[in-house]
């Protein structure tokens, strides 16, 4: 272990994400559990690489490490290329590389959801945490990564709490679920009817399930298909032609059939609501052409939302999140600066070399994935 192994001067991130890599390329880059393990075994052996954590999600693969020279980072990149069956020339146009404070800022932006395909999504925070925990389990983290990751989690939490980047749902399925909670509050006892087997309808059903809806009934023109779906969701199947008779039993009706005309007419909805006058029904029409007659929206206790309505809400939420990005990025910059300063101070107090002097291995072209100012090449 060299003297500089514990300095922060060579903290780096190397990787690629959805900003620059196509889906096909990301498939190649993705590190399955086995590949991740063998890749880590390979690079853990590299001398000059004192700390290591690997983040691998469907949208990004990133290697965070502490290296004592740009040459070591270069060797990490070589190993990564080998592991993914990519040539150096294939990787370099799409990869991002940042060091020191910029790498800290990048990690915090990733953990905050600022770099996510769906801006502000929550899952990434857990994924970064898992990557860190996995590295802890492998004993590949040391004083630098420990401090950077822990401070990053605090920073990401602060950003999520103090800016609006996570406010509102931005996918149609999640908007529909939010809408359901706006009407029913707790979804545990809500009776959900899924009409048709459209993909977006299924996604909505999955989202409803994940938010606590326990009772799900599926109905489709083909009973076999309805039963298949019902089995998958752990629900019940309902013959399509009996819907008018049973409609009043449901609180949330999600329609995504490919029927050419309306499946739920004004008359059907009126009759159902008469049988449950004080209990509202949320109709979510995700079909094209529409499954529910527009007149249903005028019924007092019915709330009708179609695909356009949900998309408009999702778009509004996305725009609202986007408007918060600048504020979030300024917090990232501020916090990254503070974390890096702490690392520099602790390195200095330990008598290690002056941090912040590391440079990347070779001159790099401007990195499209790092228009966030993370390139230190």
């Amino acid at each position, binding site marked *: 272990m060299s003297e500089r192994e514990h300095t922060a001067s060579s903290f780096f991130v190397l990787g690629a994400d959805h900003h620059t890599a196509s889906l096909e390329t990301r498939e190649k880059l993705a590190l399955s559990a086995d590949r991740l393990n063998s890749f880590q075994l390979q690079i853990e052996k590299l001398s000059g690489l004192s700390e290591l954590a690997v983040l691998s999600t469907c949208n990004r693969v990133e290697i965070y490490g502490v290296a004592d020279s740009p040459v070591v980072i270069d060797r990490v990149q070589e190993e990564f290329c080998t592991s993914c069956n990519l040539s150096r020339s294939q990787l370099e146009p799409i990869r991002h590389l940042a060091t020191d404070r910029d790498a800290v800022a990048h990690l915090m932006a990733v953990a905050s959801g600022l770099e996510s395909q769906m801006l502000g999504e929550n899952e990434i925070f857990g994924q970064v945490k898992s990557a860190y925990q996995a590295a802890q389990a492998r004993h590949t983290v040391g004083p630098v990564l420990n401090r950077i990751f822990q401070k990053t989690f605090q920073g990401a939490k602060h950003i999520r709490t103090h800016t609006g980047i996570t406010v509102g749902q931005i996918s149609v399925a999640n908007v529909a679920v*939010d809408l359901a909670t706006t009407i029913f509050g707790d979804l545990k006892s809500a009776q959900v009817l899924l009409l048709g087997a459209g993909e977006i309808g299924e996604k909505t059903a999955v989202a409803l399930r994940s938010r606590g809806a326990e009772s799900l009934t599926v109905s489709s023109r083909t009973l076999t298909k309805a039963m298949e779906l019902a089995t998958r969701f752990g629900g019940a199947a309902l013959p399509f032609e009996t819907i008018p008779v049973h409609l009043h039993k449901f609180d949330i009706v999600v329609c995504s059939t490919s029927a050419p005309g309306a499946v739920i007419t004004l008359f059907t909805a009126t009759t159902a609501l008469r049988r449950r006058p004080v209990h*509202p029904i949320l109709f979510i029409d995700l079909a094209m052409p529409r499954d529910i007659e527009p007149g249903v929206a005028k019924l007092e206790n019915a709330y009708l939302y179609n695909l356009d309505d949900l998309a408009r*809400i999702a778009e509004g939420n996305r725009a609202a999140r986007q408007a918060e990005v600048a504020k979030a990025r300024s917090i990232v910059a501020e916090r990254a600066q503070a974390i890096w300063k702490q690392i520099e101070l602790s390195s200095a107090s330990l008598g290690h070399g002056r941090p912040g002097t590391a440079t990347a291995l070779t001159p790099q072209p401007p990195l499209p994935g790092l228009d966030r100012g993370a390139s230190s090449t």
Partner: protein
Amino acid sequence: MSFSNDRLWLWLGAACYLAGFALGTLSMARKKPHSRAVMYFIVGAGYVFQTMGLYLRGAAVRGCPLGNQFEILQFTGWSATTLYLLVGATFRLSLLGYATSLLSAALAIVSLSIPSLDTTRRVGIFGGNPWIEFHAALALFSYGVFALLSLTSALFLIRHSSLKNKRLSGAFAFLPSIVDLDHISLRLLITGVGLLAASLAVGSVWWFRDTSIVNLSKLLITAGIWLAYAVALALRLGSLLLPKRLAWVCIILFAAALISLWPVDASRNLPPKADSAADHSPI
């Protein structure tokens, strides 16, 4: 100003309610939900001050402070806040604290700012009869419940309108779910009707003993309000009154109940027909 001055404590209470209102307004303007615990604390502090003020007033008049419009407004606000502190903790309805602080601040500030509401007060209105006093306090407490009910009804109508017009962001995002609002309104309605019924039942024991003490206009107005709320409740329980219409009914009825306080209160200022016992029935 001395700490034994009831108005000082009531002003402090009003200031806290105003602070709660300011907190809610600010958080809505910033599109960020306020802390429910902070709101609960602010309204709770206002409640403590107001209770202290009403206690001092009650000690001074040796009875429940319901002797003029100032005291009636203060007591109504205090009742609504009591309910919020009980209901708010149980149901955790967002914006209810904001709405309660607005209502209590409005009632407190109006009563404190108009000196004529507190220039005179009737003395011995309960004739030293604790049951009549209890009847009056229960009746006014039910008005507090109806005040809170009108607030949850207003929130229901705003939520309903936002859902129908597909406007869910901004301040609308802070509103509770429409089903929760309907449930809490129904419970408040049951509570209010029950309390007013109990108040009338307690009062009727004395009225039946001596019908000459009954102020007919007061009795008719109070019974009419109770009956209107009871009919609304029956229709709702029978699923004949839809939640949206119930919300409108509750708001209109509370406005009518509030307005009726003035003629009812004024009627007590008329010279008694036979003896001072005519004032024994406060509502």
